[in-house]
């Protein structure tokens, strides 16, 4: 191997490029049109534009990737995670084109890619599996019979599934038929497969996964576990190594099971075996991921390894760099995923420009990211911005460092989930290490959502007032009479908020939702803001333009569009419902009859005048209550031709 093409983007592309270059190889990037200015492209030694915007047009297009590899003379491809990383066809296409696929064989990918076949294989290999059904008989009657044998609660899963899609939890077997139908429908649309499996549901279990590595010489070892129990909607949010729940004895048992699982498919490469663990330390095989995991850095920090480097060695045919007995676990590492999403607004993904990005750097802090100040976050890909990983001598130190690193990593331009992550890390359940898959439940989300952001909004309003007063000149904001207040309409998290700021001798009196806040701005320069609120001076970084503000308060961040002078959305443009002739002329066609329902802009009457046809359109949705003209009529200018009873539209200004 000489040149390695990275068939991925963003933080993982950067991460892989680092190790590829460190090992002395050349790194080739591929990028979509949307990613042309990305950090990973500039880090690579060469790059190939593969066009497109969406994943399907770019990073999922096997032909484009293979052609790029050939064009750049790459002799190996690292797929990263996601996209083509677990695509057996892609692994095969690489082999067919004499390009080394850095990952397991397409057979291993295939076997592990189907939950039913994987489970069968695991049962044969003696790996404990959740009691369930993964047979070929798929009719509801048979599945219900099998379900009764297993007993409630039951998890219905798409055999080809992943990421929580096609999954249904059934606590009462009476609900099973409906759950089967909907899971099947979802699976068919998402994975083009209607095959389902049934499993005993382990409620409030722990999601613990074992990192394994196997080489072409038949060696397989494990590098301990990662606890990924903190999940929201089956998506991992916090990952840590080691698990606060796993004892050395349990680790040894689970490690052995994981190694056996890998050996059963002659696994070559690094991979992950996921288990569900109940409170009595019973563990069950969930699935095997035949790729590098998003959360691999926690293992790297605790075992002092470079798993991408291992992948390169294994792909080169080298034996594993060490034996099982050489693997030691030192300290504790926790990772969180920083997403461009609004936790207070149903985790809505955010897109736009990152005006400023400043990662925090200190002992034990690692940040994997693909960002730079000024980069664009597009809607085409996953909204993950960065991974923040902290190592500590013990779990508490790692946790503390992570909270600090989160608050000190500054991101301006988009709302992020930083505050949500800090809130989670501060929950007593997490502090005590009692996290199960039921940790982030509706109740907790509700509690976190209930936070009052008025202080942040008040500071934002004061910032706008302060900044504009200063840019308006030396006598900024000055008036000879009672001071003028500044009024703005802000769009925050989809909600319009009116704020009023009044400059006084002791700071800005800001009204938010009728409540008064006093904000004193003591420093506001070069993107750094120091303000005093309730007697406490605090620091924040900010970005401000005529259209928007973005403030990173540390834990919290607030992004607002300034709507003060945004043109009003026309109140749907509906008119009076009375359609008058726009000119004197001849009615050549009447297109509607009384009683007919019409929609806005639907043609109603055509009048001919001066050799031109004039179409008269409905000025709103409604019903025709009168047609006052017929074909052949000569009409005068502004003569009433049609009358509509318009449908009442909801008053949006309320």
């Amino acid at each position, binding site marked *: 191997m000489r040149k390695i093409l990275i068939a991925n983007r963003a933080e993982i592309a950067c991460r892989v490029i680092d190790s590829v270059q460190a090992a002395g190889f050349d790194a080739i990037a591929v990028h979509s049109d949307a990613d042309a200015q990305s950090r990973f492209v500039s880090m690579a030694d060469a790059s190939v534009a593969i066009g497109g915007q969406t994943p399907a047009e770019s990073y999922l297009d096997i032909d484009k990737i293979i052609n790029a590899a050939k064009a750049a003379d790459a002799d190996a491809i690292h797929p990263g995670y996601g996209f083509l990383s677990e695509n057996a066809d892609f692994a095969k296409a690489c082999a067919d084109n004499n390009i080394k696929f850095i990952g397991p064989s397409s057979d291993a990918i295939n076997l592990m890619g189907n939950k039913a076949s994987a489970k069968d294989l695991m049962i044969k290999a003696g790996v404990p599996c959740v009691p369930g059904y993964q047979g070929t008989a798929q009719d509801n009657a048979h599945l219900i019979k099998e379900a009764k044998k297993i007993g409630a609660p039951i998890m219905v899963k798409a055999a080809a599934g992943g990421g929580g899609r096609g999954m249904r939890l059934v606590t009462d077997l009476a609900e099973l038929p409906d759950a089967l139908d909907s899971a099947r429908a979802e699976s068919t649309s998402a994975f083009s497969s209607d095959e389902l499996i049934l499993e005993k549901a382990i409620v409030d279990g722990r999601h613990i996964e074992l990192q394994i590595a196997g080489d072409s010489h038949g060696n397989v070892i494990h590098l301990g576990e990662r606890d990924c129990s903190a999940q929201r909607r089956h998506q991992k949010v916090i990952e840590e190594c080691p698990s606060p729940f796993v004892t050395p004895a349990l680790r040894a048992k689970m490690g052995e099971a994981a190694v056996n699982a890998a050996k059963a498919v002659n696994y070559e490469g690094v991979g992950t075996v996921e288990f569900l663990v109940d409170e009595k330390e019973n563990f069950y095989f969930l699935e095997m991921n035949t790729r590098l995991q998003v959360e691999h850095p926690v293992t790297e920090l605790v075992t002092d390894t470079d798993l991408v480097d291992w992948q390169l060695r294994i792909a080169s045919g080298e034996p594993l760099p060490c034996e099982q007995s050489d693997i030691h676990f030192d300290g504790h590492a926790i990772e969180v995923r920083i997403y461009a999403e609004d936790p207070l607004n149903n985790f809505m993904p955010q897109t736009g420009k990152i005006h400023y990005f400043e990662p925090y750097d200190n002992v034990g802090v690692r940040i994997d990211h693909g960002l730079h100040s000024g980069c664009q976050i597009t809607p085409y890909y996953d909204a993950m911005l960065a991974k923040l990983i902290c190592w500590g001598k013990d779990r508490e130190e790692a946790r503390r460092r992570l909270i600090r690193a989160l608050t000190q990593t500054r991101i301006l331009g988009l709302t992020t989930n930083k505050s949500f992550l800090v809130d989670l890390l501060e929950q007593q359940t997490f502090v005590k290490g009692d996290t199960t898959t039921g940790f982030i439940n509706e109740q907790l989300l509700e509690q976190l959502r209930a936070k009052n952001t008025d202080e942040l909004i008040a500071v934002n309003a004061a910032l706008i007032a302060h900044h504009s007063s*200063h840019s308006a000149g030396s006598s900024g904001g000055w008036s000879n009479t009672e001071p*003028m207040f500044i009024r703005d309409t802000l769009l925050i998290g989809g909600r319009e908020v009116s704020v009023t700021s009044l400059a006084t001798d002791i700071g800005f009196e800001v009204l938010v939702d009728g409540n008064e806040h006093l904000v004193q701005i003591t420093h506001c320069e070069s993107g750094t803001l120091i303000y005093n609120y309730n007697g406490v001076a605090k620091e924040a970084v900010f970005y401000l333009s005529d259209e928007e503000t973005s403030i990173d308060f540390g834990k919290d961040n607030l992004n607002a569009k300034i709507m003060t002078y945004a*043109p009003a959305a026309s109140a749907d443009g509906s008119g009076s419902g009375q359609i008058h002739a726009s000119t004197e002329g001849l009615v050549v066609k009447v297109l509607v009859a009384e009683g007919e329902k019409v929609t806005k802009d639907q043609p109603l009457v055509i009048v001919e005048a001066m050799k031109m046809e004039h179409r008269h359109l409905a000025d709103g949705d409604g019903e025709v209550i009168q047609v006052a003209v017929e074909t052949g009529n000569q009409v005068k200018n502004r003569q009433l031709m049609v009358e509509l009873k318009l449908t009442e539209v909801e008053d949006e200004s309320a």
Partner: protein
Amino acid sequence: MSQLETRLDTNSEAYRENVEFMTNYVEKVRVVERNIRASEERYRERAEKKGKLLPRERLSHLLDRGAPFLELSSIAGLGMNGDKEGETAGGNLIVGIGYVKGRRVLAMVWNYAIKGGTITSVTTRKNLRLQEIAFSTRLPLVCLSESGGGNLAGGGDPDPWGVHGFLDGGRVYCQQAELSAAGIPQITVAHGNATAGGAYQVALSDYVVLVRDQTHLFLAGPPLLKAATGEEADHETLGGAVMHATVSQTGEYFAESDADGIRVARDILDQFPPDAATNLVPDQPVEQPLYPAEELRGIVSEDKRIPYDMREVIARVFDGSRFFEFEPVNDPHTVCGHAHIGGWRCGIITNNGPITPQGAKKASQFLQLCDQTNTPMIFLQNTTGFLVGVEAEQAGQVKHGSKMIQAVANFRPIKLTIIVGNAYGAGNYAMCSKSLKPEFVFSWPTARQAVMGGAQAAGVMRVIAEDRAKLTGQEIPQEQRDMMEKQGAAIIESMEHSSEAMHCSSRMMDDGIIDPADTREVLIFTLETCLETTHRGTEPNTFGVARF
């Protein structure tokens, strides 16, 4: 230029008393301004129900965030037309000079929250004054209109809207037409009612922005229509935004709400050629005064008989506290000299006492010198009047006083006046009060404008009566003496009251009362407004822009 040294002892009891007195007085003015705003605030619920912004909110929305705003005649109408503490003061109109999209403009916002924004004599006078400023400064005028038309109810005034007011109202429309012809654009957002006179105010504007479901612009609203002709029609049919946009074509732009209408007005201003007048470079770099502006509150004493040196005021208002005095050793009462303010050259004429014949000569000559070099003049008025007496009369007091009035009246450069303290008699005129047409005139709370002091006036009345008695050889009966005593007291009280700054300002004998600490800001703001005028291009035409 030498710097003035202060003799003001800021640790003295007198200083503290002065500050307290002045601060209290400023607060009295603020209270009136706050009462006006409180009246608006009482309308909030109704306004919000209608989806409307309050008048001040409209103003704030119109103006650039944080940019300075000079409000004019904020307490006009105080105590008039049934007003008590200012609840209905302000003439139902907010006027001033501010910035929109970085451009200086004149703003006029109808305060519909007070008496429906109806028109009284005060409203008309404020409107006319703003138009006068439009002519002299060539600044575009933005009007956020919503008025119920003439005030038929009249408050407590027996004749608030008499026939004289009717003609004054006509003058507003005349001047609107003249402004249009002079190439000074007027933009009006028709936020609500615009009935009769209110309708012409809108329609005589060069640009009209209509607001959906809010604009109701007609000669006669539904009630008057029914009363006059028996015809029945609703507001929208008679004068709604849609009707005017599509049928009568009395408006050019269409908006969905108050805020949207104001946005459109701002966007219209954006279409005008860039204002070459903004960003003029001053004659020299700005130098702040040596002493803090707040100390201006501690100079004038409540007891107006206690004298003070106006140089203390100059030292706290003008650049670097520098003053180049003209004829410094001749006549100490009238003080003249050159200075800079905000980097701009200017002359100063002020008084440390009555105007003597010598002082009048000195001031007249200084005016002519400044006229020769086109140097703006700033009058800091503090005079009890022209000196009387045999010596003064024989020295030609009337002649020299007349000459000074003549010099002030015909002075061609910019004139700005601050009435600091006394402004009595013909001295009031000679020191360029409103009668002598300064571009702007503002008062300190300590200002007193009157033909003479109340005690003097009462004294004159007494002396005349005594003289008449002496002539007929009769003794003045005790009864009459008592009556004269009472009458004298009444004259004193009435004249003292009517010469008070707040009373004068409520009658628009100035452009407003300012906090002494704001003097420098107000002078720079108004001076620059005027200075820019010569650089402001306008395109006059003959008939104004007509709406066809």
